[in-house]
């Protein structure tokens, strides 16, 4: 009986592990292939498992526009993630702590952008910016403010729900305890509520950054003339003309993501980054 149970457990874990390993191979295998291919110094665009003339040649030949685009992406993602997280946290506090009537409805409202196909959001903002230019003479196309506004719009949903979940779980008892022990409302917020919100804030910030940093379907309509994000720049390269240094560039971007995530893991811990974690 117990032996059979153990066999079952083994089979079950074997199955789960097999699927998991397949998923990781599927997701990361191609990325490793890019890194290997980036070392091939000839101009050829075909895969070889071992580069014939391995060198770091392309790493020193990355055109300046990609490095500029990388800077643009980093700036856009940082600013829009901060704004979206601040707005999302305010909304979550208002909904949960304000005991707002129709809390469910409000949460649904803030989640609406997730139901709009990204390509539609892109076109919608493009036309909106045209109109703003016609009416007010304000030009947002190909500008930091324009891209950030659209990115804030698509990332707010992630922030509202992550912070709201954390707030509902913590409740108000600790705040009340702090205040009955003589804390002012502000210091109770700063020293009790804010630390309790931290996991939600981090998840929101993290996801917003990632989504903003990697977006193509929205940004492709809004970027332009000197203000192009990295994914859009690479998209144009793949669509219209081939540039061998893109492999080296992509490898660097992957290494950058990896480094950033390891830093996050060291500094705040990754259990914070899993959405709706048990904390």
């Amino acid at each position, binding site marked *: 009986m117990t032996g059979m149970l153990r066999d079952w457990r083994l089979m079950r874990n074997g199955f789960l*592990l097999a699927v998991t390993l397949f998923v990781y191979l599927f997701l990361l295998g191609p990325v490793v292939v*890019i890194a290997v291919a980036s070392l091939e110094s000839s101009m050829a665009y075909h895969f070889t498992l071992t580069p014939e003339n391995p060198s770091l040649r392309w790493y020193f030949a990355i055109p300046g526009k990609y490095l500029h685009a990388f800077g643009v992406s980093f700036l856009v993602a940082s600013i829009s993630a901060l704004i979206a997280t601040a707005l999302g946290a305010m909304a979550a506090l208002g909904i949960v702590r*304000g005991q707002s009537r129709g809390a469910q409805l409000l949460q649904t409202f803030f989640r609406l952008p997730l*139901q709009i196909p990204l*390509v*539609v959001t892109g076109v*919608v903002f493009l036309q*909106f910016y045209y109109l703003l230019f016609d009416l007010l003479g304000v030009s947002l196309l190909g500008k930091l403010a324009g891209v950030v506004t659209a990115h*804030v719009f698509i990332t707010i949903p992630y922030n509202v729900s992550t912070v709201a979940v954390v707030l509902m779980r913590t409740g108000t008892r600790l705040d009340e305890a702090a205040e009955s022990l003589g804390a002012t409302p502000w210091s109770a917020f700063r020293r009790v509520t804010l630390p309790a919100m931290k996991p939600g804030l981090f998840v929101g910030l993290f996801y917003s950054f990632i989504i903003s940093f990697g977006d193509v379907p929205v940004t492709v309509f809004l970027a332009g003339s000197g203000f192009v994000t990295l994914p859009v720049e690479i998209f144009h390269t793949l669509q219209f003309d081939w540039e061998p240094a893109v492999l080296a560039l992509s490898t660097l971007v992957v290494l950058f993501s990896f480094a950033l995530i390891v830093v996050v893991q060291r500094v705040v811990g990754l259990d914070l980054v899993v959405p709706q974690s048990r904390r």
Partner: protein
Amino acid sequence: MAAGARRPSADHADLASERSRLWRLLLWPPFVIALALLVLPQAVFVWMSFHKSLGMGLVSDFLTIENYRRVLTDPFYLHAMWMTFYLSLGATLINLALALPTAYYLARLRSRWVSYFVVLLLVSLFVTVVIKVLALYLVLGKEGMINHTLRALYLISEPVQMLNSQLGVLIGLVQYTLPLLVMLMIGVFQTIPSSLEDAAEVHGATWFSSLSRVVLPLAWPGVIAGSLIVFNMNMGAFTSAVLLGGGRVLTFPVLIHRKVILDVDYAMGATLSTVLLVFVLLVNLASVLLLRERRGSGSQRAATVHVS
């Protein structure tokens, strides 16, 4: 002294409702901003879709439903919508089949390896879809790794066409949304205590029945919510369709991109976008209604298992 500090309960209730009112003030800035960003651009846009395109990005002054008539009667557009739908649904189902076991395994794994697994998953989530597409070229392309290997082993003489087809687009979509779905599902499984499963198994439930009668009914709302996020992302993505479809897989997002960027036909672009938006909203609404119907019976079943 201590008695003086304790407030009478009526005062306390007043204070609490006063406090809630203050918290509610915080709601206004994000609410107004989100509403403005949602309503203003959309309104301009839907308005645009009722006009005739005059070329060069200009539209007529009069209103017309001609654009909608064209989109909704032309077999070309209807087929494009159908293809967008089944590719997105297919990618979502494949994603679920892969993400559920993976997320369950990682959520239940008690080992220091978990954090390495999660780091790698996040790297994959972080890497932008265009880099993933580039990687797929290298692996699945005519001169790619798989064809190269198969030919070196004399298993094939002609390269197998995997990209520049719907299959290529499907693989691209799975690459695009799989990491996000796994992360979301880990979150879902973590909120379900494993002690519930242990309890079910102690009482003689097999793994399968504890999964289907305890875990899945509890996970169901989260699974549906996550699947919808991923489905919507697939419906609005065109990177993999443009780059892996070889110009042959004309999904709705690809058509919208072409209309707006290449043809500068904003009226038609707006019409196609509105049709896509309405379609996606209907799918979401239908799923939510379906979920509400199932939720009653689901949680009841979970409760019975828990008690028995």
